[in-house]
């Protein structure tokens, strides 16, 4: 009987480790389970904030998975609307879902986006034995016969991976975007598997998803969707230099509740800038295949507003929202 009780206690302790919280310390909500991108954002930014002395107590990370970040969003909007000690991890996925009304009616203006300090560059890749050598080849093939090229990506239909090729094709003057074939599979690696296997002709995803396949020689990256070539991957051409002015990156950043004062908002923006400038963050970025992408404060908020508007317009055209 004693052993049974002991086991029950140890199990209870085990379960509650994730939820111990220190009084009045800043809290970072990762709207996903431990291990994902949002969790990484909270843990890295939280740790660096404390290490460089921007906060005086360690930042407590809370995992609140559900509805692709929607549960955490609802929690912040409805219950923590004026909590100045709260930051929440966000990425392009957050704004894409908000733009597509995937958070049950909640909108992007119900929180404040405080900044992004790094980004995973978007890429378009083909199998190593593919006839398409450049982005231009691929675009021409689609223009000639939209059915001849199918894309695979790690997000659902209408998700950010799906939107990347659509942005390129719109830029190239191909407007019938509903004709473009896309299948959403379980993550970037799965998308590569389908492309290498010849079931789809191209893969759309993030740089971090393809790094290990690149050195193996299974795939060829025909475009990276950044302003300039990415450090460490100088031989991959940007879409822009191939004549398609499309920049699509999966940024990593934070939002805060709507109800905090401008001073509090600016204080967070300032702290985030300090993290962005730190050596620790530079190291974390290289370790995780992120490219520099720093936008904080009002600058970032207007970037997000623009992003939400353009994704919303494209999603309507695509028919994923009314």
């Amino acid at each position: 009987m004693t052993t049974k009780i002991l086991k029950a206690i140890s199990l209870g302790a085990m379960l509650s480790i994730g939820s111990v919280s220190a009084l009045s310390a800043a809290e970072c909500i990762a709207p996903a389970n431990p291990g994902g991108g949002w969790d990484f954002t909270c843990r890295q930014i939280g740790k660096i904030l404390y290490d460089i002395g921007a906060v005086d107590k360690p930042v407590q990370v809370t995992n609140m998975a559900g509805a692709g970040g929607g549960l955490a969003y609802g929690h912040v909007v409805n219950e923590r609307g004026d909590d100045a000690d709260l930051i929440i991890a966000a990425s392009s996925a957050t704004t894409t879902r908000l733009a597509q009304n995937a958070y049950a009616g909640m909108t992007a203006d119900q929180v404040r986006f405080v900044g992004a300090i790094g980004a995973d560059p978007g890429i378009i890749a083909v199998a190593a034995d593919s006839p398409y050598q450049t982005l231009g080849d691929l675009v021409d093939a689609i223009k000639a016969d939209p059915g001849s090229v199918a894309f695979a990506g790690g997000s659902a239909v209408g998700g950010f991976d799906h939107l990347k090729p659509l942005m390129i094709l719109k830029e190239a003057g191909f407007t019938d975007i509903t004709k473009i074939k896309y299948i959403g599979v379980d993550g970037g690696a799965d998308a590569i598997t389908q492309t290498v296997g010849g079931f789809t002709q191209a893969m759309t995803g993030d740089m971090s998803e393809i790094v290990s396949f690149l050195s193996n020689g299974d795939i060829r990256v025909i475009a990276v969707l950044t302003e300039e070539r990415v450090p460490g991957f100088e031989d991959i051409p940007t879409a822009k230099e191939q004549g398609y002015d499309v920049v699509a990156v999966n940024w990593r950043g934070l939002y805060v509740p709507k109800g905090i004062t401008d001073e509090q908002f600016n204080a967070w923006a300032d702290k985030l800038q300090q993290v962005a400038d730190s050596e620790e963050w530079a190291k974390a970025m290289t370790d995780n295949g992120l490219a520099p992408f720093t936008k904080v404060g009002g600058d970032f908020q207007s970037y997000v507003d623009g992003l939400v508007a353009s994704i919303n317009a494209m999603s309507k055209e695509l028919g994923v929202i009314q």
Partner: protein
Amino acid sequence: MEIFSNLALGFGVALSPFTLMLAVAGCFLGTIIGALPGLGPSNGVAILIPITFTLGLDATSALVLMTSVYYGAMYGGRISSILLNIPGDEPALMTTLDGYPMAKAGRAGDALVLSGVASFVGALLATIGLMFLAPTLARVAFFFGPAEYFALYLLAFCTLGGMASNNQAKAALAACIGLGIAMIGVDSSSGLPRMTGGNLHLYDGIDFLVAIVGLFAIAEVFFFIESHGAGSSIGVKLEKVTIPWKDIFDTRWTMVRSSCVGFIAGILPGAGASLGSFLAYMTEKSIAGEKGGFGTGVPKGIAAPEAGNNAAAGGALVPMLTLGVPGSGTTAVLLALLMTLNITPGPTLFTERPEVVWGLIASLLIANFVLLLMNVPMVKIFVKILMVPPWILLPGVTMISFVGIYSLSGSYFDLLLMVGFGALGYFLRKLDVPTVPVILGILLGGNMEDALRRAMTLSDGDVTYLFSSPIAVGLWIAAIAGFVAPMFLRGVLRKPPAITD
């Protein structure tokens, strides 16, 4: 002999006292997590991830701890399947079919030992397979496109009919209920929410664990309340544990075959351990024929799913390590852990980080022997956790179920849903509708639908695309044979007794 030098490197890493301690601790925790209904391997591993951060473990140690928990949970899941008729986790579902009847017949100890040995054989063969074949087998995933996956899942559903052979219509009805439940959530082929009623909690769909715990554990509580504890099926006696040498010897080929089936199912991304144990059980059942008595508590019916699901657990590591594609829910969590530790799994992992890969393989081998010891001679320790009078055990199971389910998402909504599933399970059992097909519908339905929708997108709705490769055609033939054969055989052979309990 590159493998042996690699393995020596691996054992060099894994045999340090600290790593060894982590492996033993992981096995122990994993077995408990597996044994407790409501705590499956995937959320068990997810819950423990923060601990690896807190302890500041390096990549290899963290991986050793997590995979020991993973293997441990695969072993542990059978304990409550056999003793309580409540699967400890999803892959242990099939073990209830023969494990519980055998335990009820007074052979609980034999069932536990036999399933422990089967688990060992499955896991060991899978680890060896992982060691020798991983880089080669990784290429298998390149041959499976949407059409092949659809045919594979179809095969699983077509063999369902044989599962509740006393009434196929009810089994089909149950599978349809499961498929219907699997449709809830955001439709990944259009991005639109379906049947969520605007409720954010339903956007991710319904977690299998919520359904399993509800249909099995909570439904059991309702029956217990109804009968005032009198006719409860819970509380099998376990007097003493001896080793049933004869059964182990008799099932040796079953274990080997099931390990192969499970390993292959594990390698295919997304299929996972549940499909592995299911296909292993069905393969053995059809080999044994209707006279095999599957569903009545025969040794082969216990050995097959256990060898199958443990082999699948090892198999699932193949695509995870070599392609970065998780082969099951738990490996998806492990993959996330690897990424956090700055290890990017992929084709180059074996050459770039050999100490991680071979350290992992060596510790899997060690974990396997530790688990065999824990689960055969020392099985009573775990059994004691579950061997208390029903009026103590059942509230305990209920409490753990609630805590476990709450830990999934931290929302009370899942708890309500679980109670809802409990009510559903109660009525289904009153109507003599088997609940296992419901779970399989939820477990595999979503994947099957995704595969079909992707195939239709790629082919512009051309149905012949589904039969466009030899692999797909082979799977279709197997599926049709699996569906039709029982109908013709029924006239020849006598019906076996009902398996629903």
